[in-house]
């Protein structure tokens, strides 16, 4: 896959109201009250109006990815990403964002004391960014299939600098290779992306068994999300 820019239709990455409420700490089994439910619906509508989901991706060979992964030499020595990419079949760098406008809207809402809607929109935007990354992951899987790579028994999983022992400083080399500034994403001095609602990393494709690891590394202690558990489990869902 040569470098591609993807414009993702908003309807494909609309966050479900239940997910937005969950982002506000309301469990799925709990019936939200009418006002809260309406706020969540308003936030999704505002997301539909303000979000501009877009992505960039480029396939990369293992030897070209190695320096990107190594970044500035600050990875944890036992990061699982190293052995996984070494055992992979295909790799692609990616970056996605839902744009600056929605981030500005969240700030505006907080500035005008509309805290509840601002916070709800923030949850909608986080979920929408995640859905946009998943959409790009699916497009890559489709690309692999179109080019005749065996899909049965193959898994696809995303990793991002800043997680799983892959140091965030690797963002610099990732950005040098991918140039996501074309879709409006820039890096600051501390390797943080702007707009904030952006995700970057590598999509790794390979036999499913290469992805399994226990989240018991020392750096897992600092991770609040542990989304790897869910994502590793979901690798099987990519089978077509």
């Amino acid at each position, binding site marked *: 896959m040569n470098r591609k820019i993807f414009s993702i239709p908003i309807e494909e990455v609309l966050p479900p109201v239940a997910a937005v409420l969950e982002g506000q700490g309301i469990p799925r089994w709990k019936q939200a009250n009418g006002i809260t439910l309406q706020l969540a619906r308003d936030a999704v509508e505002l997301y539909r109006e303000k979000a501009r989901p877009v992505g960039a991706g480029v396939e990369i060979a293992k030897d070209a990815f190695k320096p990107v992964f190594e970044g500035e030499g600050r990875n944890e020595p036992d990061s699982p990403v190293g052995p996984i990419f070494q055992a992979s079949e295909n790799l692609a760098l990616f970056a996605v964002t839902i744009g600056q406008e929605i981030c500005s809207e969240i700030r505006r809402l907080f500035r005008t*004391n509309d805290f*509840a809607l601002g916070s709800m929109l923030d949850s909608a935007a986080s979920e929408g960014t995640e859905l946009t990354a998943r959409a790009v992951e699916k497009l890559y899987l489709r690309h692999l299939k179109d080019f005749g790579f065996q899909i049965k028994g193959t898994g696809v999983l995303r990793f991002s600098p800043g997680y799983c022992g892959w140091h965030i400083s690797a963002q610099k080399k990732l950005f040098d290779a991918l140039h996501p500034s074309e879709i409006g994403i820039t890096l600051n001095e*501390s390797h943080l992306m702007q707009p904030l609602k952006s995700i970057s990393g590598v999509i790794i494709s390979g036999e499913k068994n290469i992805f399994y690891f226990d989240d018991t590394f020392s750096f897992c202690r600092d991770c609040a999300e542990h989304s790897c558990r869910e994502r590793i489990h979901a690798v099987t869902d990519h089978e077509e």
Partner: protein
Amino acid sequence: MNLLQQISDHLQQGKAKSVAELTRQAITDGLHPKNILDEGLIAGMSVVGEQFRKHELYLPDVLLAAKAMYAGLDLLKPLMIEANAKSHGKIVVGTVQGDLHDIGKNLVAIMLKGAGFEVIDLGNDVSAQKFISVAEQEKADVIGLSALLTTTMPTMKSVVELAKERNLYGKVKIIVGGAPLSSDYANEIGADAYCFDGMNAVETVKRFLDQIR
């Protein structure tokens, strides 16, 4: 039901407009601004906070109540300044240098203001130097540090170290919060407390100020 109780009730229901109207009426009736604040607005927010702690209310309910609180507070603020009323305590908050995430910090600031504290919000990407110099200038009681990225957490330690250098350590309490943090980390860097959410921050700050006073 008296006017202050009505303010508290309407605030708990997140009715910003009626809280503003009732606050205006209380001012017109000659009630002391400090009483309106303590027995109306803060009393209402305390009930909301307690219900949130018990999981009877969720974040959106608290934020709607906070909006109502601010509607009343905006009317009281000029009168409080005029009367030279003392705040319940002064807290400097910000997201540490290198980190641009500010939603969590904003939520904590909203809760702290709702509890009657004076909050100086330094925004995001704030250096250790800035936290300490503002805390010194403003004679703050507490510094609240927020971080979402594991890579920016070390800046929190720099704030603690600088507080030691400037002889503020122990005099100004330092609280930390954010997704990747823990009590262990707070202990490790010498912070006074880790707060897992805004309400916990309010309880912690109240506890610290009770100890000081």
